């Protein structure tokens, strides 16, 4: 089969044809082969953990003799047993990345360009703006937004900084977009906010139910626990509108319609009750509110749920029998059921199912949420949430307020009241109730829903400062950008999805011009006249205060020390004393953290998603992650191998819509529209389309999503809104990640960014499909 191909003269002398995928080496992460340093002698391995998701895999960073991080080596930590995902393997490339910010950027108005300035100048300007805004409009006119990828010490400091140094009630964090629904449900049911079981319990279970979590892509390393359970005979149930990698081989895949989770779980509970599979003895001994719940689920026969959820009736019965029939069953969920205007209810309906079948507080039987951010658990525990104080204390509880004021050494009257949630703060910016903002470790221009509103809110701010190590899309719109350390340049603790506190170690000195977030917050506080309460040379000193501040609370860290963490590889809180082993599994004694020790079951009623379907908008749009990228992509969109794997967003559509792979498709919602290449697959419901959210405007999924909030947790409804799709002329190109003036985003990593094709599969381009 010899076919002529058009040849452009001149013909190269060297052989120039090779089959697809055999000659492509651009997946090299941007490091040319002859600059690859394999000649490392005297390298040291620094034990630490990954900076990305809530699994918190252990890893070693390879450090050369000059003290620079240059590579990664798997670490046999018991969380991950040497396994790493592509993000984790490439994480180290951020550390000495050419795009790093190394000097403060400043401008007095948004019409000017950024200029590199000294730390003194940037901090003086920041402090003078804080003083001006708070002087003119009151303390609450200045807000702080933190992040859940910060070490716990820093999240503690964000809360203290806002309340003690700025004396503003307006402090919140990006975990508001992530874990708060589960947190709310946990608090309501158990009075304690964390997963009930360690990962290792998954290996002991007989039936594992995963609701709304694409584990294979968002927590790849956790898959080993799923597969380990199945190797030992466990059955796997996956509830997800898409047939993800774990759903593909699951025993039961419930491909329900987005936004119908609580109807489904109520129906499952209905079958459990109807078939007498409920654990009445357990319910009687350990719960309150079961009668009301039982009565409520009577209204959810499988026939009703089947119609609402778009799944077969038999599947609901099958799931109920499988889950309730198992000796030990576990349920885990993530953003898929939490990112809803009834996110808390969805979580509660899963809790109800676990409790009703007596699956709690035993090895292999229990419940948990999979936190998305590295410190999704730890970041919500110690006071950067608008309504919480350190140790999970409530800011509205007088006793709690007194305790914290004593620890912080401030007058109770000086401690502000509860603030508002992140999305609400944006609305307040629009209304000029908040006029100044410091953002630390977040990128709302990509991560918050309904981009237009977010942009308007931030643009209305009179002063906006951002801390980051790469110039994020949000930071690029600020007045002041303060360059801070990456995770490998400081030490601190994080709590993973098991609520296990683990220690990150410092692998290299920060580049000149870069400071730790701790230093920056303390320095601003000092300039505001609060130097005495912010005298922290480093994370260790903050942690010591945090230990004391959490002592005696539900989230008790008192018994955890850096030394113990290094000896043990991690301790699960509560850990009230330095000889306490920690608490990997909750409720073993059948008691919850409520004063009565009972599980407070809550009635859940399903309601339709907030964005109504219509003839114009008949489809459900759901958003989510892909394996090669993390959250707003400010980190991963700069790492060559990850950009190669997944260069751009796409829209996943069912073949019934008549599109072919790569066709430009316009996705339209009531908030806006995007043109993305189609990835046509039978692995998604025909009435649903999916767009991954890691890219900025004009390719941002959050240009489409709805800023409706759950009334209790204030989590936005990212996972469902009404949409339609239509064919378009041309796919929109992904913009380059922003960089400091005079810099270009490291070109070797951006080579494939402008490629208009969709990935081969949601997990990315096949290795032969690059180039």
């Amino acid at each position: 089969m010899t076919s002529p191909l058009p040849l452009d003269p001149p013909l190269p002398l060297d052989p120039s044809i090779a089959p697809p995928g055999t000659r492509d080496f651009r997946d090299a992460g941007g490091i040319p082969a002859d600059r690859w340093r394999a000649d490392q002698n005297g390298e040291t391995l620094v034990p630490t953990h990954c900076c990305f998701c809530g699994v918190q895999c252990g890893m070693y960073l390879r450090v050369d003799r000059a003290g620079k991080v240059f590579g990664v080596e798997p670490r046999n930590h018991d969380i991950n047993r040497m396994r790493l995902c592509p993000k984790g393997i490439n994480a180290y490339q951020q550390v000495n990345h050419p795009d790093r910010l190394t000097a403060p950027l400043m401008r007095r108005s948004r019409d000017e360009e950024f200029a590199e300035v000294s730390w003194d100048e940037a901090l003086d300007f920041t402090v003078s703006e804080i003083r001006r805004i708070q002087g003119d409009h009151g303390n609450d006119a200045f807000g702080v937004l933190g992040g859940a990828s910060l070490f716990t010490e820093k999240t503690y400091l964000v809360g203290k900084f806002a309340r003690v140094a700025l004396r503003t009630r307006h402090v919140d964090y990006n975990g508001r977009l992530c874990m708060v629904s589960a947190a709310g449900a946990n608090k309501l049911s158990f009075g304690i906010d964390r997963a009930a079981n360690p990962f290792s319990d998954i290996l002991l279970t007989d039936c594992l139910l995963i609701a709304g979590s694409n584990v294979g892509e968002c927590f790849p390393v956790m898959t080993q626990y799923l597969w380990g359970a199945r190797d030992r005979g466990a059955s796997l149930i996956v509830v997800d509108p898409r047939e993800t990698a774990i759903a593909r081989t699951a025993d039961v895949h419930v491909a329900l319609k987005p936004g119908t989770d609580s109807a489904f779980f109520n129906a499952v509970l209905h079958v459990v009750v109807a078939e007498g599979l409920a654990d009445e003895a357990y319910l009687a001994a350990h719960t309150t509110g079961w009668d009301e719940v039982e009565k409520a689920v009577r209204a959810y026969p499988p026939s009703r749920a089947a119609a609402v959820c778009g799944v077969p009736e038999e599947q609901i019965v099958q799931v109920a029998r499988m889950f309730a029939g198992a000796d030990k069953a576990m349920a885990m969920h993530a953003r898929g059921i939490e990112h809803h205007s009834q996110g808390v209810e969805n979580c509660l309906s899963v809790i109800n199912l676990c409790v009703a079948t007596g699956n709690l507080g035993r090895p292999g039987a229990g419940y948990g949420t999979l936190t998305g951010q590295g410190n999704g658990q730890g970041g919500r525990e110690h006071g950067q949430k608008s309504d919480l104080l350190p140790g999970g204390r409530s800011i509205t509880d007088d006793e709690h307020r007194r305790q914290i004021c004593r620890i912080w050494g401030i007058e109770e009257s000086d401690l502000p009241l509860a603030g508002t949630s992140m999305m609400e703060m944006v609305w307040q910016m629009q209304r000029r109730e908040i006029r100044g903002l410091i953002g630390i470790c977040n990128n709302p221009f990509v991560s918050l829903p309904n981009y237009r509103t977010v942009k308007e809110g931030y643009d209305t701010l009179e002063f906006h400062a951002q801390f980051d190590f790469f110039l994020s899309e949000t930071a690029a719109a600020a007045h002041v950008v303060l360059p801070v350390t990456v995770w490998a340049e400081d030490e601190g603790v994080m709590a993973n999805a098991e609520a296990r506190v683990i220690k990150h170690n410092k692998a290299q000195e920060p580049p000149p011009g870069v400071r730790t977030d701790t230093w920056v917050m303390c320095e601003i506080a000092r300039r505001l006249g609060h130097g005495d309460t912010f005298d922290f040379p480093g994370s260790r000193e903050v942690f010591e205060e945090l230990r004391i501040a959490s002592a005696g609370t539900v989230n008790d860290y008192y018994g955890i020390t850096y030394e113990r963490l290094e000896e043990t590889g991690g301790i699960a809180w509560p850990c009230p004393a330095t000889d306490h082993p920690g608490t990997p599994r909750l409720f073993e004694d059948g008691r919850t953290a409520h004063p009565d020790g009972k599980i407070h079951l809550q009635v859940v009623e399903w309601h339709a998603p907030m964005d109504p379907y219509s003839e114009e908008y008949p489809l459900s749009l759901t958003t989510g992650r892909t394996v090669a990228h993390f959250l707003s992509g400010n980190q991963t969109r700069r790492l060559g191998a990850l950009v190669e794997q997944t260069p751009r967003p796409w829209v996943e559509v069912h073949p019934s819509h008549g599109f072919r792979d790569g066709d430009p498709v316009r996705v339209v919602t009531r908030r806006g529209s995007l043109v993305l290449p189609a990835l046509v697959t039978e692995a998604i419901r025909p009435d649903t389309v999916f767009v991954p959210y890691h890219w900025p405007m004009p390719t941002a999924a959050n240009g489409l999503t709805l800023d409706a909030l759950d009334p209790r947790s204030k989590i936005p409804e990212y996972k469902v809104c009404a949409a339609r799709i239509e064919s378009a002329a041309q796919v929109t190109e992904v913009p380059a990640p922003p960089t400091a003036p005079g810099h270009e985003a490291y070109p070797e990593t951006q080579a494939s960014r402008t490629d208009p094709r969709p990935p081969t599969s949601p997990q990315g381009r096949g290795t032969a499909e690059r180039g």
Partner: protein
Amino acid sequence: MSEPTEVLEPDLAPQQPPGPPAKRSVTARATLAGAAVSLLLIVAIVLGSRLLRDFDSALLPYAVATVFLAFGVAYRYTVWVSAPGARRLFRRGIGSLFSAANFRKAPTALPRMAATYLGLQKFLGARSHARWAAHQLIFWGCLLAAAITFPLTWGWFTFTSSTGSGPGYEMRIWGYKVLGFDSLDLAGWLMFHGLDIAAVLVIPGASYFLWRRMKDRGAITGQRFAYDLLPLICLIVISVTGLLLTFSSIFLHGGGYEFLAILHMVSVVLTLIYLPFGKFFHIVQRPAAVGMQLFKYTARQDEQVFACKRCGEPVDTGPYVENLRGTMRDLKLGFDSFVEYCPRCKRVLRGNAYLTQVKKGFR
């Protein structure tokens, strides 16, 4: 399925069993080739040195070593091009090389290939700039040294002075005067110190490679002493002892000269004899690769591109694919028709077969 454009060689008919008989015939042929080439060299030495009149008996061991070298190279070369993969590609290369049609179509292709490939070795630059630089140093150093020493040991060059000991010298090849020069001017100095210059080129190049083989984890992987380190050590020993000879004659008034001369001679002789059997064999092997390049280039000129049967992406040139399938048939690799699919499609087909025929899911 396409038909091979080349007819199978009759002497390689499938019924002929592979193994010992073929092997013996290869050995015999190789021995014959080795003997013939060494004999030719001996004749050339005798004639070139004007019936040994110009032959320097002090250099006898070197000359003998080159005869062994000639035998070894010819022997190894014959064995090498007798293997199916090499034989077919070699013939295609030779065919392209001596094709008048090719020459007419692209007269400059071959010289340009030889210059960029064999001379400048651009492909090494694509592997690593440092390795390219080091290899160029060794390459030109060795070439210079060989160009000087081989004719000298064979008695083909002579340097004579009418005044007895200079500074006026004349250089003769095969007895004919080629040029006269003054050993005190720059050109003369360069003529007399050509080998020192060669050593100065080789030492840093070989030292870089040796250093790399000590440090670089990629290079260390699977590294063998005799194959990877010995050649570098040989080059360094030869160059250093050679330089020391000059050093001794200039600064030490010949102190230690005899010992150094023997050490130098031993290292050179051993290196020459080892050359056909170790890493150095690539020196004689590599030029044939130009033939492969020309073979592919010729087919590209005729727009004979073979596309994958499944995805339609180009795989390689048509004649190349047929040549490879012939090689596979020679080797009794019965899946030669799979060559019609690109590697990606092979994997996807295998993945599909696994999903449909082995297992679809977890269990």
